[in-house]
C-alpha cells in the first residue's frame, strides 16, 4: 500500500528534524474562544459533547422523576418543588394529564437524542477515533465543530414548545401521526429540533467514516483497530444511512403540520384540524422505525466496543474472538436495517410482514449472543482488576443480557400482542438503554477520564456511584417487567382508573422511590467529576497499562495529540504475552522486552488473529 512508503518517509523526517515539532501547531496563540468554545480540536469537542449531554441527562432525569411521582401518587402535589413549576404544567402542584404526555415525550426525546447519542457517538467518537488511530485530529475539523454547535440550538428548539401555551411536544418520542400532526406548535418545534440534531449526527458520521478510512497511522490496518473504533465506524454507517430517512419522515410530517398536506392523514378525519386526506398513517411508522430501529443500535454499538476494550484491559487478556466480535457488529448493523417492523406488529400493517419481521428480529439475537459469549470468553482465565471502569463494563453485560432477553419476548409477534405498549417494553427500553448503553458509557468515562482531563477520578466515589447505580437501577426497572406482565399500559397518566391495575400501586410506589435514589446516585458522578477537575490527582500517561494508541500520547494530549510519529506493530489486545516481561504490549512498541534478559520476543506471535 502507499501507506508503507509514506511511513519510511515520515520516519526520515522525524529523525532529521529532531524535536522541531513544537513549532508546528503551537505557533500562534489561540484565543480563549478558539481554544475552548469554537474549537476545532476533537478533544475539546468531545468534552463539550460530554458536558452538554450530562446536563441533559439531568434534565431528562428530572422529567423521569416527575413521571414517577405521578405514577406512584397520582393527584398528589409534588413535594417541595411542586409550587415552583409553571402553572401550565401543574395546578396546585399536581401534574396535569396534558403535561404528563409532554413529560414522557420530552423524557424519551431528551434521553435518546440529547443524552445517549451525543455521549456514545459525539463524545467517544470525537475523543477516541483520532487518538486510537494515532492521528492528530478528525479529517474535517471544522465540520466537526459545526456538528457540535448545531446541537445547542437544536436542543433549544426541540424543547421550544415550552414557550407556547400548548406546551411542548406531546406525542411520545415516536411522534406518530395523526396525533402528532394535530398537536400544537410545540410539536412543530420538536420536528425542527430533531431534524437539526439528525443533521448534526450525519455530519459527525460522515466525518468519522472519512477519518477512519483515511487517517489511520502507518501500520494501523483495519483489523488492528480497537473495537471501540470499529464500533464507531459501523455506528457512523448506521447514522449516515439511517438518519436521513428519519429526516425525510420528519420533513413530511412538517409539511402535514405546517403546510396542510396529508401524507400521513387518510380521508376525512374527524378532528378539529381539517385535512385534505389521501395519506396513510402507518407510512410514517415505517419511515420512523426504518431509522429508529438502527438508532437503538447506534446507541448500543459504541458502548459494546467500549466494554470490549475495557474488559480486555482489565482482564489483562486478549479480547476473545476479535474478528468474530467485528463480524457480529457488522451483522447487527446489517440486520438492524431489516427488522424495523417489530415495533409495528400491532399497528395494523400486513400480518404477513409481521411474520417476516419476527424471523429477522429473532435472528438478530444471534450476533448479540456471540458478543456476550466472547466477553465471557475474555474474562475467562483472565486476571480481572476491579475498577469503576471494569465494574461498569461487567454490569453492562449483566444488564444487557436481561434487556436482550426481554427483547426476544417481544420479537415473537404473538407474544408481543399482549405485552406491546405495556411496561414490559419500558423495562426493555431501560435495560438496554440505561443498563446497557449508559453503563457502557460510564465505563468509558471512568476509563478515559484520565486521558481526557489529565486527572485521575476518585476511585472510591466511582465505586460508590457504580454500586448505587447498579442496585437502584435494578430495583427501579426490574419490577417494570412485572407491571408489563400485569398488563400495565405505558404512557398512561393515571393507571388506577382501571380495576385490573389498582393492585399495582404499591409496586409503582416502590419503583418511584428506587428511581429517586437512582437519580440521587447520579449526583455522585457529578461530584466526582467536578471535584476531580479541580482537585484531582494528576494522571500518568498510561494509568491502566493499556495497549491502544491513546495511551502513548501525553496526558492530557496536546493540540495535535502526539509528540512523536507513531507506527503500529500489532493488534490492540496483546496482553499477557507469554515470555514477555510486562503483561501488556503497546501497539506502538516494536520490541517487547522479554522476561529473559536481552531476548526479543518472536514478532510472529503478535499478529492479530
Amino acid at each position, binding site marked *: 500500500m502507499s501507506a508503507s512508503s509514506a511511513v519510511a518517509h515520515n520516519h526520515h523526517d522525524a529523525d532529521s528534524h529532531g524535536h522541531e515539532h513544537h513549532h508546528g501547531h503551537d505557533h500562534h496563540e489561540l484565543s480563549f474562544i478558539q481554544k475552548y468554545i469554537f474549537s476545532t480540536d476533537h478533544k475539546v469537542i468531545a468534552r463539550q459533547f460530554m458536558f452538554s449531554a450530562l446536563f441533559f441527562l439531568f434534565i431528562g432525569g428530572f422529567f423521569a422523576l416527575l413521571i414517577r411521582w405521578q405514577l406512584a401518587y397520582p393527584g398528589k402535589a409534588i413535594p417541595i418543588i411542586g409550587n415552583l413549576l409553571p402553572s401550565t404544567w401543574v395546578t396546585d402542584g399536581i401534574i396535569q394529564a396534558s403535561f404528563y404526555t409532554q413529560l414522557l415525550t420530552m423524557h424519551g426525546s431528551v434521553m435518546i437524542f440529547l443524552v445517549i447519542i451525543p455521549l456514545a457517538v459525539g463524545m467517544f467518537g470525537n475523543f477516541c477515533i483520532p487518538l486510537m488511530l494515532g492521528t492528530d485530529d478528525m479529517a474535517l475539523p471544522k465540520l466537526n465543530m459545526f456538528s457540535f454547535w448545531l446541537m445547542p440550538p437544536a436542543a433549544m428548539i426541540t424543547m421550544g414548545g415550552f414557550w407556547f401555551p400548548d406546551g411542548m411536544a406531546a406525542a411520545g418520542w415516536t411522534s406518530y401521526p395523526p396525533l402528532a400532526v394535530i398537536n400544537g406548535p410545540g410539536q412543530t418545534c420538536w420536528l425542527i429540533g430533531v431534524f437539526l440534531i439528525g443533521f448534526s449526527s450525519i455530519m459527525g458520521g460522515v466525518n468519522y467514516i472519512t477519518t477512519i478510512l483515511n487517517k489511520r497511522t502507518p501500520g494501523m490496518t483495519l483489523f488492528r483497530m480497537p473495537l471501540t473504533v470499529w464500533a464507531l465506524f459501523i455506528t457512523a454507517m448506521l447514522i449516515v444511512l439511517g438518519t436521513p430517512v428519519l429526516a425525510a419522515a420528519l420533513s413530511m410530517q412538517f409539511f402535514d403540520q405546517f403546510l396542510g398536506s396529508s401524507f400521513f392523514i387518510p*380521508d376525512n378525519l374527524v378532528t378539529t384540524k381539517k385535512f385534505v386526506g389521501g395519506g396513510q398513517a402507518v407510512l410514517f411508522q415505517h419511515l420512523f422505525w426504518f431509522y429508529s430501529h438502527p438508532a437503538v443500535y447506534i446507541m448500543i454499538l459504541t458502548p459494546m466496543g467500549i466494554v470490549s476494550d475495557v474488559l480486555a484491559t482489565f482482564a489483562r487478556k486478549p479480547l476473545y*474472538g476479535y474478528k468474530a466480535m467485528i463480524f457480529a457488529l457488522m451483522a447487527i448493523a446489517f440486520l438492524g436495517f431489516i427488522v424495523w417492523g417489530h415495533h409495528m406488529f400491532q399497528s395494523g400493517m400486513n400480518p404477513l410482514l409481521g*411474520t417476516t419481521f419476527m424471523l429477522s428480529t429473532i435472528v438478530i439475537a444471534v450476533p448479540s449472543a456471540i458478543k456476550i459469549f466472547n466477553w465471557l470468553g475474555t474474562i475467562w482465565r483472565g486476571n480481572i482488576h476491579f475498577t469503576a471502569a471494569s465494574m461498569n463494563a*461487567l454490569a453492562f453485560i449483566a444488564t444487557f443480557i436481561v434487556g436482550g432477553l426481554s427483547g426476544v419476548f417481544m420479537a415473537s409477534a404473538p*407474544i408481543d400482542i*399482549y405485552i406491546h405498549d405495556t411496561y414490559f417494553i419500558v423495562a426493555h427500553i431501560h435495560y438496554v438503554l440505561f443498563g446497557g448503553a449508559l453503563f457502557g458509557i460510564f465505563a468509558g468515562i471512568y476509563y478515559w477520564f484520565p486521558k481526557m482531563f489529565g486527572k485521575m477520578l476518585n476511585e472510591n466515589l466511582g465505586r460508590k456511584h457504580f454500586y448505587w447505580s447498579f442496585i437502584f437501577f435494578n430495583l427501579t426497572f426490574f419490577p417494570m417487567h412485572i407491571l408489563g406482565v*400485569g398488563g400495565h399500559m405505558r404512557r398512561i397518566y393515571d393507571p388506577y382508573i382501571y380495576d385490573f391495575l389498582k393492585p399495582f400501586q404499591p409496586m409503582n410506589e416502590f419503583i418511584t422511590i428506587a428511581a429517586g435514589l437512582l437519580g440521587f446516585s447520579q449526583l455522585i458522578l457529578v461530584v466526582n467529576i467536578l471535584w476531580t477537575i479541580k482537585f484531582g490527582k494528576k494522571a500518568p500517561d498510561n494509568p491502566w497499562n493499556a495497549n491502544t494508541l491513546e495511551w502513548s500520547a501525553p496526558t492530557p494530549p496536546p493540540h495535535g495529540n502526539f509528540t512523536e510519529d507513531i507506527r503500529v506493530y500489532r493488534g490492540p489486545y496483546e496482553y499477557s504475552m507469554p515470555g514477555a516481561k510486562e503483561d501488556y504490549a503497546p501497539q506502538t512498541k516494536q520490541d517487547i522486552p522479554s522476561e529473559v534478559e536481552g531476548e526479543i520476543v518472536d514478532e510472529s506471535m503478535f499478529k492479530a488473529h
Partner: protein
Amino acid sequence: MKGWFEWAYRDMLSFFPENVSTFGAQLDGLFTFVYWISVLIFILTYFLLIAFIIKYRARPNKKSYHFHGSNIVEFTWTILPTFLFVGIGLFSEDAWTKTKYQMKVPKPDVEVDVIAYQFGWQIRYPGPDGIFGKKDRFQMSKMNLFGIDSNDVNGKDDIIIENAQLHLPINKNIVVNLSTADVLHSFFLPNFRVKQDALPGKWIKVWFNGTKAGKYEIACAELCGSNHYAMRGEIFMYGQQDYDKWLDGKNKKMIELQQKQKAAELTLSDSTTTSQGS
C-alpha cells in the same frame, strides 16, 4: 407498605390477569415457553459471569492466559443459538397466523363494529334487521362516527352504544371490525390477550372467543392525547341466553324508537337531512 412485599415473592407468570379467551392460553403458553428459555439462558450466563468474576479476580503474580479464541468455539456458539432462536420463531408462527391473519379470521357468530375516538369507544350492533348499514367514510362526523350511509335503509336501525360498553356472548367467535375516527388508538382487552391498533381509514378485523361470563375492561394502548389514560371501556360476557335477552331488549328499544321517529317524520317531513353536517 404491606403491598410492597406481596409481589416480591410471586412468580412473574402469576401476574397475568385472568385469561378468558380460547387462544389466550396459547399466547400465555408461548410467553411461558420463552420465559423458561430465558430463565435458563439467564442462569447459564449469570453463572458463568459470576463464576469468572470470582475465580479470575486479580491476584498478584498471576498472569492471564494469552489466548485469542478459537474458530470452532465461535462456530458452535453461533449455530446453537441460531437453531434455538429460529425455533422460537417457527414455534410462534402458528399463534400469529391464527390471531392476526385477516384471511384466517373465523366465520363470525357475532359481529360488531368498534370505533375509537378521542377519547372513547363507540360500538355498533346491526339492530333488529341483523344487517349493518353501509359505511361511507365521507359521511363520518362527530355525530356519525361510523359514517353510516344515510341512504342505506339497513343502517337506520343500527344500534350505537356510546358509553364504551361491549356486550357479547361466551363461547362464540366474535369478530370486531375496528377503526378510528381520528388519531391512532389501540383496542386492548387484557383478559382476552387481544391488542390491535385502530387505523384511521381502515377497518381491521379482530377476533376472539370468550370462555367465561363476567365483566372485564377495555383499555386504549396507543398514546392518543392527554386523555389517553381515560379511554376505559367495559366488556360484559354473557351466557347465550342472557346475551339474547340483552340483545332483544336493545332491539325492541330500537324498534320503538324508529316508530316514534316515523311518526315525527310524518309531521315534520324534511328534517332528516339537517342532522348531517361537518
